[in-house]
């Protein structure tokens, strides 16, 4: 299994009484001038980059960054700014086993979208072919509120943007693009990516059935970005795999990726003590995000909308995150396995069981979350990297599946590599 250290890059210093009564959302609505401090943000960015570099040093397979706007949850406005830093630093420090998982730049709100084709090509060039090109549809609040895109056009712009990007990467002739949303008179992208024909694409999503179909139809892997752990993801991933079967796709686990918040300490008890408050900070403060913001009307297509409403709690247990998470304490969220918190043995066992149950070949772990300070994040990454990572990397290696969705020069059998290293 390929394991990526994913960083939300959050603001770690919201006050204890946040969110105050009446604040509808910590996204869009939390005033910077009341809660933000640029000096603290300096630390946040630098810590996050150091934490990712530590993961690179410990042998993680990928480093993950993303894009969000107008919030303290995670404020990488453009993941490629951070990807560029990581591309250069990992190259200079000899960590060239690590992929840059850009998860990613939001094509539906970038105009023209070849800006992202260019930036991704730059990253692939600087890193020497280590880019995974994540192409998220983007959250409604980011795309439609922060960036003003009409919700009904969100998905169409995303699809057209991807088509344009792939053509711009691969065309061996000049072309004009006369799309519904974008028109360009002459496309001739400089530079092109190192990876031929182009970097592997990864499509992150929530639980939209049309995104699953899109992945299967285009043979792209899907990253399920859930905050609610492996148990609640079963319904979603079962449907994803059922759709794959219907469309004649195999059950290659590398078609799927899953995001998990993880905290490791010496013992289960100590882990609960150390991570509990950061879990609550994450779920209560940073995920203070109402449904109408995540998916304003027109954002989900009609079929997906009806699918979600008809399935009710069966598919998505939590509706309005700004309300329904508040009664849950850290203990509850650990019990429900939203978060995997425990000793190395506990974490190994839970993550392995989860990956097998969901049939995922890529795991993204968020090892810094919420208010977790830098020193604690480093400890978490170290413990995970030494005690959990090698074990998880062996997963699926006894199976015949090929990972077609990872940079070619980084595709390897971890077990064989380790044997060679010890010999």
């Amino acid at each position: 299994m390929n394991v990526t250290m994913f960083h939300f890059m959050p603001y770690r210093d919201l006050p204890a009484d946040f969110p105050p009564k009446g604040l509808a959302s910590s996204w869009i609505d939390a005033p910077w001038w009341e809660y933000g401090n640029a000096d603290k943000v300096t630390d946040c960015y630098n810590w996050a980059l150091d934490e990712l570099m530590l993961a690179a040093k410990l042998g993680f397979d990928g480093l993950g960054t993303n894009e969000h706007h107008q919030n303290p949850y995670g404020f990488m406005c453009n993941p490629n700014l951070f990807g560029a830093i990581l591309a250069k630093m990992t190259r200079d420090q000899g960590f060239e086993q690590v992929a840059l998982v850009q998860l990613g730049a939001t094509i539906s709100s970038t105009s023209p979208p070849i800006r992202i084709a260019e930036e991704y090509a730059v990253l692939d060039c600087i890193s020497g072919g280590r880019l995974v090109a994540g192409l998220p549809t983007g959250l409604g609040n980011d795309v439609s509120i922060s960036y003003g895109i009409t919700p009904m056009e969100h998905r169409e712009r995303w699809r057209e943007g991807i088509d344009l990007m792939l053509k711009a990467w691969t065309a061996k002739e000049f072309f004009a693009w006369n799309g519904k949303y974008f028109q360009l008179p002459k496309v001739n992208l400089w530079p092109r990516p190192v990876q031929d024909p182009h970097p592997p694409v990864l499509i992150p999503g929530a639980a939209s059935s049309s995104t699953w179909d899109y992945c299967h139809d285009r043979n792209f892997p899907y990253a399920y970005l859930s905050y609610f752990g492996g148990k609640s993801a079963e319904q979603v991933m079962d449907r994803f795999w059922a759709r794959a079967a219907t469309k004649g796709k195999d059950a290659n686990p590398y078609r799927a990726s899953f995001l998990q918040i993880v905290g490791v300490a010496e013992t289960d008890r100590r882990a609960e003590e150390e991570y509990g408050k950061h879990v609550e900070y994450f779920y209560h403060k940073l995920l203070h995000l109402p449904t109408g913001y995540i998916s304003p009307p027109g954002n989900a297509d009609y079929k997906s909308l009806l699918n979600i409403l008809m399935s009710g709690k069966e598919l998505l247990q939590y509706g309005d995150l700004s309300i329904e998470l508040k009664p849950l304490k850290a203990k509850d969220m650990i019990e429900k396995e939203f978060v995997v918190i425990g000793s190395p043995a506990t974490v190994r066992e839970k993550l392995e069981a989860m990956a097998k149950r969901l049939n995922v070949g890529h795991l993204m772990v968020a090892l810094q979350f919420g208010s977790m300070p830098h020193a604690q994040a480093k400890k978490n990454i170290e413990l995970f990297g030494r005690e959990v990572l090698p074990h998880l990397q062996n997963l699926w290696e006894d199976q015949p599946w090929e990972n077609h969705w990872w940079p070619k020069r980084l595709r390897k059998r971890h077990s064989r590599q380790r044997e060679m290293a010890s010999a």
Partner: protein
Amino acid sequence: MASPATRTIPIRHCNFEAKVKVGGSGPPLLYLHPAGGPLWDPFIEGLCERHTVYAPHHPGTGETVRESIYAVESLWDLILIYDEILDALELTSVPVVGTSFGGMMACELAAHRPERISKMILLDPIGLWREDAPVAPYMLMPPEQLVATLYKHLDAPAVQAALQMPSDPKQVAVIVADLIWALGATGKFVWPIPDKGLKKRLHRVTAPTMIVWGEDDALISSVYAKEFADRIANARIEIIKDCGHVPQVERLDVLKPLVAKFLDS
């Protein structure tokens, strides 16, 4: 009263298959529905007493194909679709009643083809923007906040009747999906700020116009009544007291005679 019939009209523009509800009898009247989608309510039934009411469904809503909205790329497309619907209905000069989003569309039609609209009644229309009185972000509100913003008296029997839901959760799921989709399909033409140039076009309207506003409209402030009236040559304002955004539900008793009188004048 006989239930309304549905007319299906193939439209060349955007290959849209239009659906128009037709009810009542008498001289024709065009009714344009609000952002939440088409409905056939006591207000429309009242109009049917003296008129043949034609109520087209906005693309993607009501009885139209949900995905048909994708082909309607711009407000210009939408206006041309309505123009073609009126052609098919052979309505060369017709009075129009437009509520909220439908009010904006009535204005757009009347500005595009002034001769085609003989009279215009606008109920709390959207379509203009004042920085000191921004239109509430209704597309982002959770349901309970949305209804509290729409109505002044949530507990009034007429409001409760309008909000009534069936007991079968599957039916509710379809109603909610249709409502959300209708907000998205109409929202396509007002997002993110409902100021798409109507202010530059309203001077073209020639129809005698009555602008009706709930005095306590929390969604679109009644200060907008004057904004519309100032730009339409022949316009008058009727403010309904103790009423929110939906006078046709909250104060039908006051609205009905106002509308009848204006249409008869």
